[in-house]
């Protein structure tokens, strides 16, 4: 019994020893783990502090950048606003306007050709509400491939007050409507000018001198406009002992020594109807003869012009009428061309823009009378227009012409034109 008990006791002691050793070993390991963890936490703390520091620096940097950017942006906006104000409030203003036209014409008894190419730049220079300089050039391709450049008009306009402007220089004739307002390609609803309203016809084209222009509105909304001018006046061309034509374009000389006075008064009883009366009087003389060339001396003779024009618009309908006449008196003292003559022309035109479309139909009748049968012409013209925009149009026009048999005035024409005003 005692031996068995002793063995049992030894076993217990052995086991206890082993367990003790295991516990000692375990406690030693746990202490090491805790220390390692403590070390790791310390490292993480340091990293976190560094990160915080870095983020703080970056935030400060971003804030500083944003502040700088905002300051720069504000400065830019202020400068842009200043620039905007500068051009808007500038005393002088410059603008380039004008129009261009290209066209094809097929005339009876001749081959068709692309015979129209013109570019008309218009320059506007304005100083305050006081002065404006305006000028138009007409640059055209000629039949031989050359280029012709002409000064259509150039004037300095003094805006005296709300009702009066003084225009000095070369200006489009204020007699009637066609020459001064309707002739540009993008305004004229047909591809050609009415006979008699072109060069050397019944209507004067331009003048060199001064004019007063303006308008006035009455209390009842009726209004009037006016243009009174004085200029060098026209000169006469002769052929075969007769006055062949009146060249009523601005001359830089007054060959007869007598200025021509004239003007137009327009009256609008209602906003969509205008009637105008034009007239001019003065003297003119023969300066060019087809056979003799320049004529240095020929007595001055009376010159006069008279015109009436009307325009009526109602919704898509536009009606227009114009009559113009130029007359030079006989001059028995003239050895070049003692007989005078009267050139007169009138046209009536109707245009209708089809609602909700870009299409427009136009019809015009013109009668041009001259002392010379070769110049006279009666024309019925009809056309269809397609408006790409209010200032860009494609026109197809057919003219039925009656004139002296065998001459170009008697030949019908078919015209296609593209015109753009800018």
């Amino acid at each position, binding site marked *: 019994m005692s031996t068995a008990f002793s063995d049992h006791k030894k076993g217990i002691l052995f086991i206890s020893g082993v367990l003790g050793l295991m516990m000692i070993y375990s406690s030693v390991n746990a202490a090491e783990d805790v220390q390692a963890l403590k070390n790791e936490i310390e490292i993480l703390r340091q990293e976190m502090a560094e990160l915080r520091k870095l983020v703080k620096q970056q935030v400060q940097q971003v804030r500083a950048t944003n502040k700088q950017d905002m300051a720069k942006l504000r400065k830019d906006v202020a400068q842009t606003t200043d620039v905007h104000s500068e051009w808007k409030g500038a005393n002088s203003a410059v603008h380039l306007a004008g129009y261009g036209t290209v066209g094809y014409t097929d005339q009876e008894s001749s081959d068709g050709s692309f015979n129209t190419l013109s570019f008309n730049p218009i320059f506007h220079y304005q100083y305050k509400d006081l002065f404006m300089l305006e000028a138009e050039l007409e640059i055209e391709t000629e039949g031989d491939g050359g280029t012709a450049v002409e000064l259509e008009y150039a004037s300095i306009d003094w805006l005296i007050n709300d009702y009066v402007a003084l225009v000095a220089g070369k200006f489009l004739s204020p007699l009637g409507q066609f020459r001064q*307002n309707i002739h540009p390609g993008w305004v004229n609803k047909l591809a050609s000018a009415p006979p008699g309203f072109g060069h050397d016809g019944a209507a004067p084209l331009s003048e060199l001198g001064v004019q007063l222009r303006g308008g006035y509105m009455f209390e009842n909304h009726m209004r009037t406009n006016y243009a009174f001018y004085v200029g060098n006046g026209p000169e006469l061309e002769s052929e075969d002992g007769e006055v062949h034509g009146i060249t009523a374009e601005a001359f830089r000389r007054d060959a007869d020594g007598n200025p021509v006075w004239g003007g137009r008064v327009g009256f609008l009883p209602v906003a969509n109807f205008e009637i105008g009366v034009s007239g001019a009087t003065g003297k003119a003389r023969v300066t060019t003869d087809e056979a003799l060339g320049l004529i240095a001396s020929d007595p001055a003779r009376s010159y006069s012009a008279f015109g009436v024009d009307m325009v009526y618009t109602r919704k898509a309908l536009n009606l227009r009428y114009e009559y113009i006449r130029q007359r030079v008196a006989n001059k028995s003292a003239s050895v070049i061309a003692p007989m005078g003559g009267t050139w007169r022309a009138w046209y009536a035109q109707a245009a209708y823009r089809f609602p909700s479309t870009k299409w427009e139909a136009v019809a015009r009748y013109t009668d041009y009378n001259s002392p010379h049968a070769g110049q006279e012409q009666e024309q019925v013209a009809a056309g269809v227009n397609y408006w790409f925009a209010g200032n860009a149009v494609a026109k197809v026009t057919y003219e039925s012409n009656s004139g002296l048999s065998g001459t170009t005035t008697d030949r019908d024409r078919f015209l296609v034109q593209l015109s753009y005003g800018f």
Partner: protein
Amino acid sequence: MKIPALVSKNIIAVLTIFLSLGLHSGIAMSDDSHEEADVSRGARAWANNCTRCHNLREPVEFRDDLWKPIVTHMRIRAGLTGKETRDIIVFLQASNSIRPISSVKPASSPGQGSGKTAIKENSGKEIYQQTCIACHGADGKGVLPGAPNLTDKSGPFSKSDSELLRNIVQGYQGPTSPMAMPPKGGNPELTREDMKRVLAFMRKEFGN
């Protein structure tokens, strides 16, 4: 030598007469130059005068600074008064820029209050005054040729709101009108809610 002297005399006489006329007119009729330009008057003058000779040029075609010399040129050509010229210029300058609705000033009429509440309550009216009035006029009867009479019983407000809203959104040209109303009345900044509000205002103000 005799002829140039005669010409000189004539020219001097002419200039004297013209300048006398001009200066006299200036003294007698210069009061209007101090009157403030008006957009509605300008819209009417623009439509009435320009269409006699040519199609209307769209206001958005040119910048503010360019419209001034253009219209001054037309003043000379068409015999406009200075007042009409200024009215047309402010109309074109107001019509060629698209201002966001947020820039609309709050109503300041007595009794209408002010600030945000006033803007909200009167936005339809404000939008109308900002975008529509130039063509349709303060009384809704139209100031331009082709602009319909909104007060007419058989006019636009005989149509349903949905049709009118569609016309405002897409733009519309009446069967006899020479010009079209542009989409959103020419103000692309308008939202659908803006257009509903202005439509409600117009129906209340002009509809029967």
